[in-house]
């Protein structure tokens, strides 16, 4: 019997997205696939309480999501969305600002560089984030979010701005790290090659509708 960390029952959003019952497996690499507009990103935002379902239930570790404080929930279930935000300053300062917002000590350079390397970023800490490419910014952003060590990491199209070579390396590094730290992964992706290589659980959304 696989260990389920997130589960949905008759979940719907705004009466136009109806999800089949979904199970996200603990400590596994879960992929969510489906045509655009099927509600993949919406599902991630329902999981971390950024959106409220209009019908049905979500359970996190067996507990109703509505009974969990959303701030604590988002610290455990971290969503790395497609719309990247970095402060207009250096990599170091971005770490500092995000950690201050979370009310935490700024980590050591050694700690930061571990996550930057994991995401294939080889710039010095003083590198200005405003001069980076979209793909580089996405990876710095991912590194910062990973460094907070959530229990579940949700990546929305993590490779959309990366070339194939980089995509595979970054995902491989993240998967290895999460396996080691027992972090569950949910990835929304259109990239079949990535899905085929890494998926341990594939959830297809909106495909029943397509067959009708």
């Amino acid at each position, binding site marked *: 019997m696989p260990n389920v960390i997130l589960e949905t029952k008759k979940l719907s959003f705004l009466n136009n997205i109806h999800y089949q019952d979904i199970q996200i497996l603990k400590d596994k690499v879960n992929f969510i696939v489906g045509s655009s507009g099927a509600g993949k990103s919406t599902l991630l935002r329902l999981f971390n309480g950024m959106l409220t379902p209009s019908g049905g239930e979500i359970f996190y570790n067996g507990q109703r999501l509505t009974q969990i404080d959303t701030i604590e929930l988002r610290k455990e279930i971290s969503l790395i969305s497609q*719309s990247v935000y970095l*402060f207009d300053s250096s990599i170091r300062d971005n770490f500092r600002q995000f950690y201050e917002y979370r009310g935490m000590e700024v980590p050591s350079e050694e700690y930061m560089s571990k996550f930057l390397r994991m995401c294939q970023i080889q710039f010095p800490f003083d590198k200005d984030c405003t001069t980076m490419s979209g793909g580089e910014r996405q990876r710095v952003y991912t590194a910062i979010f990973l460094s907070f060590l959530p229990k579940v990491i949700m990546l929305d199209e993590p490779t959309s701005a990366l070339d194939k070579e980089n995509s595979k390396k970054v995902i491989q590094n993240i998967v290895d790290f999460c396996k080691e730290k027992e972090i569950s992964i949910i990835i929304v992706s259109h990239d079949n090659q990535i899905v085929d290589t890494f998926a341990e659980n594939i959830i297809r959304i909106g495909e029943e509708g397509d067959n009708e």
Partner: protein
Amino acid sequence: MNSIIKLNIMQFSLIYLLLIIILAIMKKSKINQMKFLIVASLRMTVQLVLAGFILTYVFKKPHPLFVILYLIAMIIFSIGRVLSKNREINRNFKIAISLSLALSGLFILAYFVLVVVGESFFNPQYTIPLAGMIIGNSMTGVTLGMKTFTENLKSQRNRIDALLNLGVEPKKILLPFVNSALETALLPTMNNMIGMGIISLPGMMTGQILSGTEPTTAIMYQIAIMIAICTSVCLTVFCALNFGYRTLYNERNQIHF
């Protein structure tokens, strides 16, 4: 001191000739606001003439009720102006703005008239013009503050989402927006204070000197009103935004604007 030369209608109409200069410049520079200038001048004329008649009547027969009615009209008008520029904000935010504007303005006005001048609050000669300056400037301040606040929220949607996704409390996310909007709203009033007396002889002081008041008295009133205006702007914008931003998120820590 000489008392002021009363303008007769002919003399007074001569000032309107200056508008021709503006119209000529607008025409030459292809600024398509000639109609607006005419409407604005006409509205100002009609509104001030009406105000003149009402004030003449109120000063002749001072009654607390007139003062109260005048203040209520002023407050309602200023709230209407601010809200008309912020139609898309939620109902509770609108209430926060309205109450802040009304209560901060009245508090500063009462302090000025009752404590500093030591006059009755219902003496229209003091209360009405001072209220106009205090509430009018607070209205401009809160409009500017709200404009900055909402524009920044909209342009920084990604920042807000990123921090929410990271598990940061909405309060911590929104407060920097509140503070920078307050700063922006205060700057014009403070800049005005910096240049005062050198670059400009301010309106109220000019008016008093024209009507024969000793310049030293006029200066004291001007300094007093400037500090009162600055405080009222600060208090109004601070309260409006600090009570207002709390209406932007719910108990599920979702931010809507």
